């Protein structure tokens, strides 16, 4: 096969030619994979070939090594590892050779492919000579090869994890990279490649950052690079600083003053891509300090992992004026451009983070700026002042802000109606929303909103909902937080007198011609939802009246025929919003008996609408409709059984939706809702549901976060159907057992520990459901064979000492359930278990009432089981 020609054809404008070429590439690959990959690498390395075919050859090669989806990636890795060694050596030789090609695209493609191969082979201890080969390149070859080699090292560091490369080699890589970055490197491309490589290599430099001399050296070179005449190098150097700020926060103290000077100069004078990174450095420091302070509270003792160095507090007097300056550099229409990101936005965001980091201290530094600019004729000054005000509302104490906010509130309400500039109004509405979010609600002692100004606030916000879409969207947001603040207000809400008017205005907004811009329609429905959620019994009848209104809206979306794909997407989005709204209403009305009773007259029609929403799509189900059905099942109770014959196919479809795992997870939750609602009436559907759930568990394509809820769902079903669960017992128990073995140890990072705990919780909830479901049935003895394994599982997770409170509560409950259901059969097993007693005692003396409650129950059940 003439590879070059096929690769050219594969990029032809003629679709038919392209298709034939793709077909023959596919055939070649299937018939002879090593030969195929080898000829691609030969093509890439061949200096006589056109650059397009070399690039494409490299790209296909790269795609043969890596994929986004985990399971596909795993397959490709296995395939490469099992490939003929000889072919692999030849391919790798071609790739390395290409690094010194004069054609920059070829070099760059080769760099990426080498990194992918390294990502597969280095963890397997293969290709041991790679790093030394690359390093020798750096020291010998012409500049362009040196550049490509540094780039390769950078990509490689991105692909492999630090523990794969030993410290000796890390040292050599860092030495080469940092030398390439230094001012003495004459070639700009080399210096840029080295700087970008360092960004990826920073994660490998733990040991080097602990060595004062090496750290000083790296920091000096990075700081020097921020002063390079080449803008791309300055930008890359600042990116390194940003990364260092989070990875090596605790090592920054000696350099922070210098870094401040460098960043301040960049923010004020440099080109935007550079100044954005300079601001990001401080935002990132804020992130770190907020995390540290949140984790340790104010009583930091000094022996915790990472101390807070209060860099922001120290830099405050200089940092705040620098950020305030940036606020005046707005772009004309940034508030209408979804993708906008500029120095004013970055500076404003950073100011908000600074306020959260230092609290009260920021207020006196910002107030003069607000006062000076808020009434100026130039809209930029008014907008900057308003933004500054809005951004310091989170962080400082309400006491510190109260007098300022009381004055500002009146001013803002007037500005929102009268300011001639749309950008100013946008920011004003946003700032009002921030006032309501942070300074209004049951947690705040002295209320900002009183009987005297509530009417005016509502009037102004409703008025602003008629403004341009971006302003109206912010006004909706402000109303959202206004309503939220009254969530726990008690039987009577100050918003009651305005309820009808608010709902009417929000519905009007959803019908605006331009409601598709600036997320306006979404914001209006979200606000409507919050207004309903936070409403009181006084307005229950008005919420009831809303039901047929939203139903009619949903009905209207079902009328359109023959939609274009664009229209279909819009229809689906609107249906999502309406189903979401119905879900909130159902949950609200279903939570009290009298309103639930009246609401039930609509249940059949609503369910009919949901089924039609499902029918709008052929292969997938609508997540929002599914969530709403869960709420409906809960409200309807046993009567929900009558919807099952029609609904079941969508339930199954939802459970099969691996790609949109959120949909799958939501559907699993709904199975639980339905089980509780209709109990044994779910039996006719159990075969299908259980089969699908077991399939999902054994699939490696399904996102792992869905697995714990599937286990919990086993418990829900078992509890609902009782001994009928016998049919599935063996399968469910074996799935639980193997998952239990996997989840005994949590070795790994916090995220993995959290996941393991959620898995444990799901497994334990399943056991609880099974035991309680079988209780008092003649088939209890079927569970006896599983008891010792379950006790072992409880023992081992107790011994691991890394349960969270939720798992602890569920686990001790399972011990009780086991004793309760198996009685004397369990008594001796429990007494033999090494840690049951300690575990129970620990739970009995827990501060957590839920744990204690479960433990008290377990204690009773066990004492009964033992005494019999």
């Amino acid at each position, binding site marked *: 096969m003439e590879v070059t020609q096929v690769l050219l054809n594969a990029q032809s404008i003629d679709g038919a030619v392209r298709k034939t070429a793709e077909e023959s590439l596919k055939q070649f690959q299937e018939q002879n994979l090593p030969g195929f990959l080898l000829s691609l690498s030969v093509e890439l390395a061949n200096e006589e070939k056109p650059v397009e075919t070399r690039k494409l050859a490299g790209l296909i090669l790269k795609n043969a090594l890596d994929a986004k989806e985990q399971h596909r990636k795993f397959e490709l890795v296995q395939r490469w590892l099992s490939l003929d060694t000889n072919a692999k050596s030849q391919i790798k030789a071609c790739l390395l050779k290409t690094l010194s090609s004069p054609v920059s695209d070829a070099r760059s493609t080769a760099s990426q492919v080498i990194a992918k191969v390294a990502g597969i082979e280095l963890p397997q201890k293969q290709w041991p000579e790679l790093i030394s080969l690359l390093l020798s390149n750096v020291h010998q070859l012409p500049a362009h090869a040196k550049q490509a080699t540094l780039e390769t090292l950078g*990509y490689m560091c991105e692909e492999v994890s630090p523990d794969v490369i030993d410290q000796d080699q890390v040292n050599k890589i860092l030495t080469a990279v940092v030398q390439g970055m230094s001012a003495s490197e004459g070639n700009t491309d080399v210096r840029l490649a080295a700087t*970008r490589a360092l960004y990826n290599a920073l994660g490998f430099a733990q040991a080097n950052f602990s060595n004062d001399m090496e750290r000083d050296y790296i920091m000096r070179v990075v700081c020097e690079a921020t002063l390079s005449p080449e803008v791309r190098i300055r930008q890359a150097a600042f990116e390194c600083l940003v990364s260092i700020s989070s990875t090596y926060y605790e090592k920054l103290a000696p350099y922070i003053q210098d870094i401040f000077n460098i960043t301040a100069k960049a923010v004020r004078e440099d080109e935007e891509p550079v100044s954005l990174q300079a601001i990001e450095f401080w935002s990132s420091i804020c992130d770190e300090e907020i995390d540290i302070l949140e984790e340790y509270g104010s009583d930091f003792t000094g022996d915790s992992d990472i101390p807070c160095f209060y860099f922001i507090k120290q830099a405050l007097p200089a940092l705040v004026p620098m950020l305030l300056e940036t606020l005046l550099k707005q772009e004309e229409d940034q508030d209408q451009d979804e993708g906008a990101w500029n120095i004013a936005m970055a500076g404003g965001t950073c100011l908000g983070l600074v306020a959260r980091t230092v609290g009260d201290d920021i207020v006196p530094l910002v107030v003069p700026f607000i006062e000076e600019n808020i009434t100026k004729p130039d809209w930029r000054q008014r907008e900057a002042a308003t933004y500054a005000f809005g951004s310091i509302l989170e962080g400082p104490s309400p006491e510190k802000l109260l007098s300022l906010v009381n004055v500002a509130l009146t001013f803002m309400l007037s500005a929102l109606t009268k300011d001639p500039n749309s950008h100013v109004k946008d920011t004003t509405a946003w700032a009002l929303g921030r006032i309501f979010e942070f300074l209004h609600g049951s947690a705040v002692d002295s209320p900002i909103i009183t009987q005297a100004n509530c009417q005016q606030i509502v009037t102004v916000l409703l008025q602003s909902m008629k403004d341009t879409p971006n302003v109206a969207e912010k006004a909706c947001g402000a109303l959202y937080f206004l309503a939220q603040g009254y969530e726990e207000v008690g039987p009577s809400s100050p918003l009651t007198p305005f309820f009808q008017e608010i709902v009417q205005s929000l519905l009007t907004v959803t019908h605006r011609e331009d409601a598709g811009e600036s997320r306006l329609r979404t914001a209006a*429905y979200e606000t409507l*939802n919050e207004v309903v959620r936070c409403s009181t019994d006084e307005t229950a009848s008005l919420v009831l009246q809303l039901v047929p209104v939203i139903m009619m809206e949903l009905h209207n979306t079902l009328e359109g025929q023959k939609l274009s794909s664009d229209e279909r997407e819009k229809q689906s989005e609107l249906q999502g919003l309406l189903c979401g709204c119905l879900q909130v209403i159902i949950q609200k009305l279903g939570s009290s008996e009298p309103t639930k009773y009246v609401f039930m007259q609509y249940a059949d029609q609503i369910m009919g609408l949901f089924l039609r929403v499902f029918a709008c799509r052929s292969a997938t189900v609508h997540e*929002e409709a599914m969530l709403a059905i869960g709420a409906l099942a809960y409200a309807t109770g046993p009567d929900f059984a009558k919807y099952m014959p029609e609904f079941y196919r969508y339930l199954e479809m939802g459970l099969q939706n691996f790609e949109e795992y959120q949909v799958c997870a939501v559907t699993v939750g709904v199975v639980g809702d339905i089980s*509780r609602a209709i109990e044994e009436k779910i039996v006719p559907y159990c075969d299908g549901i259980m089969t699908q759930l077991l399939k999902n568990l054994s699939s490696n394509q399904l996102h792992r976060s869905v697995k714990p809820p599937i286990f919990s769902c086993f418990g829900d079903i078992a509890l609902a159907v009782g001994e009928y669960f016998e049919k599935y017992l063996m399968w469910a128990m074996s799935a639980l057992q193997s998952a239990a073995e996997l989840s005994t140890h949590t070795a790994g990072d916090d995220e993995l520990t959290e996941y393991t705990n959620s898995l444990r919780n799901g497994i334990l909830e399943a056991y609880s459901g099974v035991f309680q479901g079988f209780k008092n049935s003649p088939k209890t003895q079927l569970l006896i064979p599983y008891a010792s394994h379950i006790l072992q599982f409880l023992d081992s997770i107790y011994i691991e000492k890394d349960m969270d409170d939720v798992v602890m509560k569920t686990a001790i409950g399972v011990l009780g359930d086991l004793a*309760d259901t198996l009685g004397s059969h369990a008594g001796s097993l429990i007494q033999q278990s090494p840690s049951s007693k300690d575990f129970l005692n620990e739970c009995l003396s827990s501060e957590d009432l839920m744990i204690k409650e479960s433990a*008290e129950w377990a204690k009773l059940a066990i004492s*009964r089981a033992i005494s019999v």
Partner: protein
Amino acid sequence: MAPHDLRRPFKRAAISDQQKRRELSLLRQEQNRRDAQQQARCLASSILSLQSPVPESEPEQSDIELETAPEIEKESGTLSKDLDVPRASKLRGPEVRKWFARQLMLPEWMIDVPDRLSQDWYVYARPAGKRCFVVSSNGTTVSRQRNGSILHHFPSALPAGAKTRDSSGSGQSYCILDCIFHELDQTYYVIDMVCWNGYSLYDCTSEFRFFWLNSKIEESGACNPPSCYHKFRFSTVPVYTCDQNGLYAAYTGVVPYVKDGLLFYNKHAHYQTGNTPLVLVWKDENCSQYVIDTDSKGEIPSQQQVVLELQDNGKLVTSDDPPVLFGYLDGDIIQKSGLHSGNLLRFAVSDGGLSFVDGKLDKADLNYLGKANRGRAFADSYSKVVFQFTVRHSPLKIDDLLASINSPDDQEKKPCDVEMVG
């Protein structure tokens, strides 16, 4: 390598409403799952048994009530260990009275101030009225006094307490509350919770029971004004941590009921039937109309009177376990009056009074008056006798209690929270 995207959310709420709806759904599902589990567990046969953990042979002791309990028979036969409430509610006659009479936790009288009051104890003002057990089950509610007799039979908003349309509760659901019925406002003041909706709280600490009591009673609707399905109002009493402020609030605070002394509960104590030193009663004139015992005519006798049990060899003892010896009755009197072991006898404390050595009773100057009222079931407890004695001579005053909370002694005994590193 392209520059890294550093855009951050701008003027946006951090969480989307859809995400919020998802999370609220999950929260609701979690709650519902918990409820379903809880319900399943409550149907458990294992927690229904409410046998008294007190050994059968333990003598019963008197409650703080001064009106003597009529017609309680002496220990009669044993009760089945497996007696449960639904079955207990089917018992008839003396059996049932006996059973219920043994289910209450009875406080000792406070004769000295316990350590660590402010850390380990709660205090509240006891409502004046009839101590009773309120049991709701099978759609009806029954209140029984300490002697087992029925006070009221009525529908209530307690779980399983009335036959209402929406009573979804299973037949096995029931509640047992420890209450005081306050005549004046016809209200049951719930002072402790023993079982709630089938869920036993016997083996829970009072800290936990009070928490549960306060959250559950309110949400059940039992505190609502009386209605067709809810004949009497229930109410909780304000319970305070027994620090200076709490004690002062319980002592002086305005409550909607007439006070009859203060009750002190050890936070860690389980609900233990019978007498317990982990619940204490204390009174003075300011917080109770009944500080000093009255006689059968309701008048305060000039000399303190005590009821003691006569044992073999003329021993005179209290109802405590083990009994406290107060002295010996002269053989002549025994013979002359035809007394025998087991009789309850009334004595007056003469001028010699009670004398103590190292905090223990050394001598009692007693004057035999005669047999005790036939209605009496038990002798007085040691703590009651001593409390009544000190009330007449050198009462334990509220200031003493307040002072003990602040005393350096109390401070010293506090366990140190800070671990020394040195």
